[in-house]
């Protein structure tokens, strides 16, 4: 864009409005502030970062070349390499990267108050997450769309390559377990939510049969039928909830729900994809984009006040939802809304094979992540518009505040957040639930927040419907991630196992499929069961583990990117990726250290195991806890080993990258850049 008068005025105005909105959020805290400021501040920050920072990176650091033919153009086979309109690619890429993470992370991090989470979502995304996605997409695009693992191997060597593959498999295991836990906490003792979730399975299957047998490939028709069926599931759940003979049949406890999720995950992984996975994927992609737009629209329309303080006393690490100081745990908890290593797998997967112009990486890589970060801001707003007392009552596990409602309320009131048993009961009744106490995992509180925002904007009497619609929406794409994750995890597992025993690599063999799926489901199922048994609600163990694994992958991706930039001769600008990498390395190491070695048994895995072992020996544990204590003790020790493994892996890759960069700068031999040769797109112009 030229530096014309109007454009200077426009961008100055955006900068001023953004600065004013941010100042309102961060500094002027006397009176309650409005959610609209969050939206305005976020949009201005993304616009400025996109217009200036991303443009500078693309022009000066990556030196994008629009005349260079992309892999999709050069290798067009109308199968995986297909040149595609950039808005279509944007839609696909966004639907692929946007998962439940940015909805849950900010909801949990709201226990520190709105400020730490909001600032990290904004700063982390524009300087870290968006840059990572952009540079990885660029690197993969210049290498015929190669995967992160392959790029790590080609550019850094076998150590980086194996670390990337291991990191990918571990992160999928942990994410599937923690997402399973979120589903369990949304379903437990809720006949309405349980029947809705159960109903989505036959609904997806009907769409699957329609799309493959009745009207093959008519995806729009199938999706509309599916959306109607899903709404019927929500309404049908309400009917079951009100029916005194049916409701008790679907009133499952947490362990039953966990086994349901595990068995379901296994069946979904071995069924043909056309029957369950693919149709649900279409439906969840539609709902995802629809709900994001609806939520942004309703927040602007309803303009709710933010009730959470900017900072709570829990920044000292004593929070009820998860333990740990605001530094480093706010960064680990927000996870996907600011920087997500998982995105580098998408940016080096399907997306680079679709781009028809190299210049599009800016919008797809940087832009999609900015939008994802905006989703995280909205989740933060939805959590912070709840009364803090209500927020803590929903999200605090029984093991922290007490299992009896009165106890929990007294405890929460003692922190200075007012809530009463009657208020919680009225809210539960209004939402069509028996109780909303101790529904940890983030999904229920987000659903309450969303239901409040939606129903204020459209339909005050539909609170219970909106709540279960929100639950259905969250569960739908959590289950999609769960299926897709299990399937991909299985492929990676088979890839590793075939080096030991060749026949394990056969992806079309049915016995091998069953065996490898069972192995992978057992891996995440183990963590899920551990989370359900945990007296602190499981989130306290599993979410940090997931956050660390995700940042480990981000660290690997940024190391690969940094190594490539140095080998491209961009030493002067290498801070673009090196700075976020350094930050990730610091917080990841710090958090890992705390989670392993902290002497606080509620933070440190080892201290937790020792503490429980000594209580078990002394016989001071409650009987129901004493039964599962031996498993929990082993579980915590496994978590500790895993965390040490994550942190050491990260440092091995970083040091390997530094070694290669040092050699390159000093003129010694390194692996050559594996970039494909320049071919002008004119060679492919339509004749």
């Amino acid at each position, binding site marked *: 864009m030229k530096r014309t008068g109007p454009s200077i005025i426009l961008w100055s105005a955006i900068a001023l409005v953004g600065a004013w909105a941010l100042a309102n959020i961060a500094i002027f805290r006397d009176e309650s502030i409005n959610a609209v400021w969050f939206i305005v501040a976020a949009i201005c920050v993304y616009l400025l970062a996109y217009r200036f920072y991303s443009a500078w990176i693309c022009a000066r650091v990556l030196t994008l070349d629009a005349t260079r033919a992309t892999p999709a153009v050069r290798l067009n086979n109308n199968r995986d390499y297909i040149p595609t309109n950039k808005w279509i690619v944007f*839609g696909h890429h966004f639907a692929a990267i946007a998962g439940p993470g940015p909805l849950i992370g900010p909801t949990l991090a709201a226990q520190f108050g709105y400020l730490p989470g909001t600032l990290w979502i904004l700063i982390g995304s524009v300087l870290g997450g968006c840059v990572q996605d952009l540079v990885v997409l660029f690197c993969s695009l210049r290498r015929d769309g190669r995967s992160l693992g392959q790029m790590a191997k080609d550019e850094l060597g076998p150590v980086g390559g194996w670390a990337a593959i291991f990191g990918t498999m571990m992160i999928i295991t942990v994410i599937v377990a923690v997402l399973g836990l979120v589903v369990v906490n949304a379903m437990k003792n809720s006949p309405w939510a349980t029947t809705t979730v159960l109903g989505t399975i036959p609904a997806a299957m009907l769409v699957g049969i329609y*799309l493959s047998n009745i009207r093959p490939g*008519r995806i729009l028709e199938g999706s509309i039928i599916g959306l109607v069926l899903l709404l019927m599931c929500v309404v049908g759940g309400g009917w079951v909830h009100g029916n005194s003979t049916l409701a008790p049949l679907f009133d499952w406890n947490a362990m039953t729900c966990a086994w349901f999720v595990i068995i379901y995950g296994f069946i979904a992984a071995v069924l043909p994809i056309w029957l369950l996975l*693919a149709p649900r994927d279409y439906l969840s992609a539609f709902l995802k984009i629809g709900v994001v737009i609806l939520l942004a629209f309703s927040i602007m329309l309803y303009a709710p006040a933010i009730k959470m303080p900017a900072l709570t006393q829990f920044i000292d690490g004593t929070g009820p939802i998860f333990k740990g100081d605001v530094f480093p745990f706010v960064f680990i908890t927000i996870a*996907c809304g600011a920087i997500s290593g998982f995105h580098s797998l998408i940016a080096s997967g399907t997306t680079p094979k679709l781009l028809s112009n190299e210049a599009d990486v800016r919008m797809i890589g940087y832009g999609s992540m900015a939008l994802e970060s905006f989703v995280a801001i909205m989740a933060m707003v939805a959590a912070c518009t709840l009364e803090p007392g209500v927020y803590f009552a929903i999200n605090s596990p029984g093991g922290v505040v007490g299992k009896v409602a009165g106890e929990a309320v007294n405890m929460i009131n003692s922190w200075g957040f007012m809530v009463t048993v009657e208020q919680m009961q009225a809210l539960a009744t209004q939402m069509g639930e028996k109780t909303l106490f101790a529904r940890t995992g983030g999904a229920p509180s987000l659903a309450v927040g969303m239901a409040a925002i939606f129903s204020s904007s459209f339909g005050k009497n539909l609170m219970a419907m909106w709540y279960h619609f929100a639950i259905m929406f969250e569960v739908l794409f959590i289950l999609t991630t769960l299926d897709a994750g299990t399937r991909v995890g299985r492929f990676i597992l088979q890839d590793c196992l075939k080096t030991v025993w060749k026949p394990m690599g056969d992806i079309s063999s049915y016995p091998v499929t069953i065996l490898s799926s069972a192995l992978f489901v057992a891996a995440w199922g183990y963590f899920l069961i551990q989370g359900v048994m945990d007296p602190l609600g499981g989130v306290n163990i599993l979410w940090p583990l997931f956050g660390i694994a995700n940042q480990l992958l981000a660290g690997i991706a940024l190391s690969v990117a940094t190594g490539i930039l140095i080998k491209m001769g961009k030493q002067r600008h290498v801070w673009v990726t090196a700075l976020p990498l350094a930050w990730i390395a610091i917080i990841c190491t710090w958090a890992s250290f705390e989670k392993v070695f902290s002497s606080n048994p509620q933070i440190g895995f080892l201290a937790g195991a020792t503490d429980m072992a000594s209580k078990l020996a002394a016989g001071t544990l409650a009987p129901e806890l004493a039964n599962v204590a031996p498993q929990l003790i082993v579980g915590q020790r496994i978590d500790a080993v895993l965390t040490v493994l994550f942190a050491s892996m990260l440092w091995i890759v970083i040091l390997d990258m530094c070694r290669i960069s040092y050699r390159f700068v000093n003129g010694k031999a390194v692996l050559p850049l594996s970039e494909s040769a320049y071919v002008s797109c004119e060679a492919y112009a339509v004749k």
Partner: protein
Amino acid sequence: MLHKRLLYIWRFLRQLTGDDAYEHYLAHRQCAHTSEPVLTRQKFYLYRLELKSRGVNRCC
């Protein structure tokens, strides 16, 4: 004018969801000179799904 715009949105929506993938495939087949048999609508749909499910395509 409005009619044209609506048509444009409709085409965009079809392309975004992959609703028109088979038509693109047929068009591609007319230009490509291969002896492979043309897939039926159903076979093509299943084939595309299989291809899509190999890599990581959903995230947290």
